[in-house]
């Protein structure tokens, strides 16, 4: 769907901005659709690409990410897994040989936490204790207030809950330095274009505008004033 939205072939994304196309559509599953549209393609990429994205996102807030050096040898992204009746949005597992790291992710789109303890339950009851030790819990929403509220109510994370917004994700997408044919770069560009449609901007820097500097084609029949012959007294 990323390509369909970005090439103006579908306007279904307007539903995520509150525009209702079908009055019979009782519930717009914006959060789950966005999770699937954005993160689905990343799950198909190789372990180095998956590892680089999550490492860079955590690094935006934590200078020293508790990951082994280099790219992971294996990576999996499981969507809506269930354990003890608790269903986080995404469970990422990264492996460097025998060393494992867990990244648990809750995505939000214009919605509040389903219960005041939703994030605490995910961390303490869904995850195994050994996964909590060196794992990270990421909240990604339009703003960070729900995660900051959860932290203020009951901080059970010992610094491992990271409150992010979608703008942070866009910032990270600009930092992915990969070979041009790596799918990660192509995926990142599609995601940034999609979020521009959803009114989440990306700071790409002013150098990115160099190609757009107005340079009208010179016409042989049109002279700007300095080129006109001048009469000197």
């Amino acid at each position: 769907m990323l390509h369909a939205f970005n090439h103006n072939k579908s306007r279904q994304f307007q539903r995520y901005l509150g525009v209702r196309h079908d009055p019979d559509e009782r519930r717009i599953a914006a959060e789950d659709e966005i999770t699937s549209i954005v993160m689905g393609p990343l799950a198909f990429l190789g372990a180095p690409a998956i590892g680089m994205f999550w490492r860079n996102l955590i690094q935006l807030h934590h200078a020293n990410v508790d990951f082994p050096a280099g790219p992971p040898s294996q990576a999996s992204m499981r969507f809506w897994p269930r354990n003890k009746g608790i269903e986080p949005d995404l469970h990422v597992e990264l492996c460097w040989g025998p060393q494992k790291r867990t990244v648990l992710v809750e995505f939000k789109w214009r919605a509040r936490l389903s219960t005041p303890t939703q994030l605490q339950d995910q961390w303490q009851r869904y995850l195994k204790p050994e996964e909590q030790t060196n794992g990270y819990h990421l909240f990604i929403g339009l703003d960070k207030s729900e995660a900051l509220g959860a932290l203020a109510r009951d901080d059970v994370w010992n610094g491992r809950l990271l409150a992010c917004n979608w703008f942070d994700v866009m910032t990270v997408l600009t930092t992915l330095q990969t070979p041009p044919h790596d799918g990660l770069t192509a995926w990142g560009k599609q995601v940034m274009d999609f979020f521009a449609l959803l009114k989440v901007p990306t700071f790409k820097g002013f150098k990115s505008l160099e190609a757009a500097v107005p340079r009208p084609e010179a016409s042989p029949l049109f002279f700007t004033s300095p080129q006109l012959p001048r009469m000197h007294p």
Partner: protein
Amino acid sequence: MNSLGSSITQSFGFVAKVGEQCEALAQLIKQEVSASLLKPSLSSHLLPGKWSNRYREDANGWVFSDAVWTLPLTPKAKKAEPLYLSIQLSIFNNNAEGGSIAEPLLHISCWESPVDHKEDCYMGFPMEHMTAATLHQLANGSARLFRWEANKRQPDWWTYSVRLTDLNDVNDVRALITTPVAQLLEDVDAGEQMLHDLPRVIRYSPLAGREHHYQAQ
């Protein structure tokens, strides 16, 4: 092809793209600065309020000439007056009032009032009443920080400037804005030293023939 018409269309398209990047930059700066204020060394003595923004149009009202994003900061010390951290984007500086430089600048200020062009309170020239040390550095062309003595023995108020086009990613924002601002809010002298070691920060020198006017370099 009508070259003039093409130039107008391309130029307005370019302005729209620049504006989009300026707004995204503002969001990045606001997030980064707000996050840095949570550090214990700053949160122990400064209470941040909410960001606000102001825009100023050119004389004909067709394009923005300036944009300002301001964060109020309330010192926790008794009797200390409120401070305002303002990020002032000024597009047209190719005149003596703007610093005689033909490119957009970002002025970062911590003053006793918010930057507000309607109140005639903004970074621009003529500018007076700086500290003796700032005037000395301005005279020899080495000034990177304007300082003014604050009331009631509070830390000096200050302003420094960077080129808009030197900001291209989150690392630039951290190096040129978040880190120096946090250092200046903690200790103005240490922050000024940090700015002197950052060659991309604008240096100011006297503008020949114009009292209280300075040239950005």
